[in-house]
């Protein structure tokens, strides 16, 4: 009972290493009450050292490594347990291992190396590379985490092939118990035929039981010879040495899986996040599509801390309440993009077939009206293809710069919104009667912006039930910009709402996404222009939006 304070859980070691404070761990020897036997491990991050000291002086200083810490710690523990060795002997050992690292027992040294392996597969693989096990051909770790449906058999079969299989838990328990009961730890694969083990003949196995996990380590030569006592002893001592690392690895594997699920959840989170795992920060916001940046630029990036080692807690920043409502909308947009892509591919093929067939028929000797009919069919096919392409392009991430004519873009936007514009009088007024209105941007971006504006106008007109619904589209030229005004004679935008309409997810419509205007605005800004609400002399009551686009340098 007296030694209780010495049993440090692996988590404390982790805390010790990952925390940033200059704290130290202090151990007291309860059996020996003399002062000089109270010592502490001091972490000195600036000089990258770990110091072992008693009250008076620093006894030994080692490089700042987890292994070194474990080394000191283990010896400290042994030392206090037995309380027979003097402290000086322990220090001597520590120094020896440091100075003569190459001379220290080979297996111990390489085991230290293995601590660095990050997963179980690597661990068993390295076990086979070990000199003392060079005769063995396959090694496995067979474990079951509490609460999991399956037990796992991981390892290397002969010919160096990786093996990873889920097995029945009852079978695992049978195996584990018989390994536990056995004294010599040598078995024959034939007696576990129910497991269908991926190796033959006799094998060595040792069980380790952790709080959350039952584990067996298996080594096999794939032959039917008996093992000598020397081999068995070495195997057992090696597994014992490895025990703490195996536990760590299993735990970390478990946490890794958990993290993967969490990560995917956070990658889809609609607002910028920053994650912190045990090893530091990393930003996941850049993983998410640039789409996100487009409509969240008004919001500053807030850090969300996520301590993975403990229970999942998400600290939301105060002014940015993220509601499930936003999440829902983000998912809708995401889905829409995918849907459009699928549609494009599914429709392109039949349309191409139709197009080719039309071509063929046109070459037949047909009557004139039949030829006309075919021509119409062909036109419609091209039209369909264009619509599909245009919609799909909205979501493509091609950033190449090009020039575009506003006149063409307006016409295209009007074609796209044809169905929405039924019963609405649309008037286009160009400032310049002739010539082109060239701007530096992709056609599709401009079309998207104008399309959104036209659709919005048509929706507000529809609500009105006015008989003389009108939309005017007119252009103005300034030194650097072409401006396109989209004006309607609807009800206009309520003064209270004027500030909000460009915010993402804000909508006044029942079925709106609230993204149209915010998306358009960020698109316009992306190409160096802008989108504003303005007033117009033509329809003072209605709403007028003006989109400005930078001219091409002449």
């Amino acid at each position, binding site marked *: 009972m007296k030694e209780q304070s010495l049993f440090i859980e692996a988590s404390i070691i982790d805390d010790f290493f990952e925390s940033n404070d200059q704290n130290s761990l202090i151990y007291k020897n309860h059996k020996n009450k003399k002062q000089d036997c109270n010592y502490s491990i001091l972490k000195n991050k600036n000089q990258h050292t770990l110091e072992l000291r008693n009250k008076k002086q620093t006894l030994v200083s080692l490089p700042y490594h987890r292994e070194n810490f474990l080394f000191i710690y283990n010896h400290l523990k042994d030392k206090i347990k037995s309380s027979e060795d003097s402290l000086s002997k322990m220090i001597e050992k520590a120094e020896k291992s440091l100075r003569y690292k190459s001379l220290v027992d080979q297996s111990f040294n390489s085991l230290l190396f293995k601590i660095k392996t990050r997963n179980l597969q690597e661990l068993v693989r390295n076990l086979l590379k070990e000199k003392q096990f060079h005769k063995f051909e396959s090694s496995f770790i067979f474990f079951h985490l509490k609460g999991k449906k399956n037990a796992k058999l991981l390892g290397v079969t002969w010919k160096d092939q990786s093996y990873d299989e889920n097995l029945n838990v009852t079978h695992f328990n049978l195996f584990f118990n018989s390994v536990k009961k056995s004294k010599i730890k040598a078995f024959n694969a034939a007696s576990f035929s129910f497991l269908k083990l991926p190796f033959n003949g006799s094998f060595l196995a040792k069980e380790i039981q952790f709080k959350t996990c039952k584990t067996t380590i298996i080594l096999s030569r794939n032959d039917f010879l008996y093992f000598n006592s020397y081999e068995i002893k070495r195997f057992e001592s090696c597994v014992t040495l490895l025990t703490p690392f195996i536990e760590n690895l299993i735990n970390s594997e478990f946490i890794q899986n958990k993290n993967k699920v969490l990560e995917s959840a956070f990658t889809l989170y609609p607002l910028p996040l920053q994650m912190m795992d045990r090893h530091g920060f990393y930003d996941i916001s850049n993983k998410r599509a640039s789409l996100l940046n487009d409509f969240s630029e008004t919001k500053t990036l807030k850090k969300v801390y996520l301590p993975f080692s403990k229970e999942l807690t998400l600290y939301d920043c105060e002014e940015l309440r993220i509601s499930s409502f936003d999440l829902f909308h983000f998912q809708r947009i995401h889905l829409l993009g995918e849907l459009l892509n699928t549609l*494009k*591919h599914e429709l*392109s*093929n*039949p*349309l*191409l*077939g*139709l*197009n*080719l*067939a039309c*071509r*063929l028929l046109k*070459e037949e000797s047909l009557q004139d009206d039949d030829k006309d009919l075919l021509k119409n069919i062909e036109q419609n096919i091209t039209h369909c*293809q264009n619509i599909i392409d245009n919609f799909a392009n909205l979501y493509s991430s091609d950033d190449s710069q090009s020039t575009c004519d506003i006149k063409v873009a307006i016409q295209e936007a009007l074609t796209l919104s044809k169905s929405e514009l039924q019963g609405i009088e649309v008037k286009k007024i160009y400032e310049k009667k002739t010539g082109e209105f060239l701007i530096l941007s992709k056609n599709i971006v401009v079309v998207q912006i104008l399309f959104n504006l036209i659709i919005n106008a048509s929706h507000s007109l529809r609500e009105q039930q006015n008989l003389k619904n009108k939309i005017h589209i007119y252009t103005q030229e300034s030194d650097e910009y072409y401006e396109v005004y989209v004006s309607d004679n609807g009800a206009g935008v309520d003064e209270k709402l004027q500030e909000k309409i460009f915010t993402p997810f804000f909508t006044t419509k029942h079925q709106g996404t609230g993204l149209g205007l915010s998306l358009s605005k960020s698109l316009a800004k992306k190409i160096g222009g802008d989108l504003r609400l303005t007033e117009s002399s033509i329809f003072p009551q209605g709403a007028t939006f003006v989109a400005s686009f930078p001219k091409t340098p002449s």
Partner: protein
Amino acid sequence: MKKILIIEDEILIQKSLKKILSRKNHHVDSTSSGKKGIDLIYTNHYDIIICDLMLQDISGFDVIESSKKIMSSSEISKKFIIMTAYSSEQVINKVSSYHLTILKKPFHDIVETINIILK
């Protein structure tokens, strides 16, 4: 006269291409199944093989891989023409790793497409 094989599961495209090419006095075989296509390649000698990437049974790349057994890779890059509506970067990279001609669907200019095929 050239011997041409068309492997395409969209029946309209298959038939029309076949007709267009036959009119130019080429011998054209066609199938909508990739596996059947492989059989045909094994049993016949074709000058040009036009193959869709997304077939219903197997992918166009599978057809190419199977043809490797009887053709050299230079022969493959000479004979095969890949048609695809999925012009993602991945697909294009894979196609160019075989040094193949690629036709992106939809064809914007059919006459030109035919010229590419017959080149």
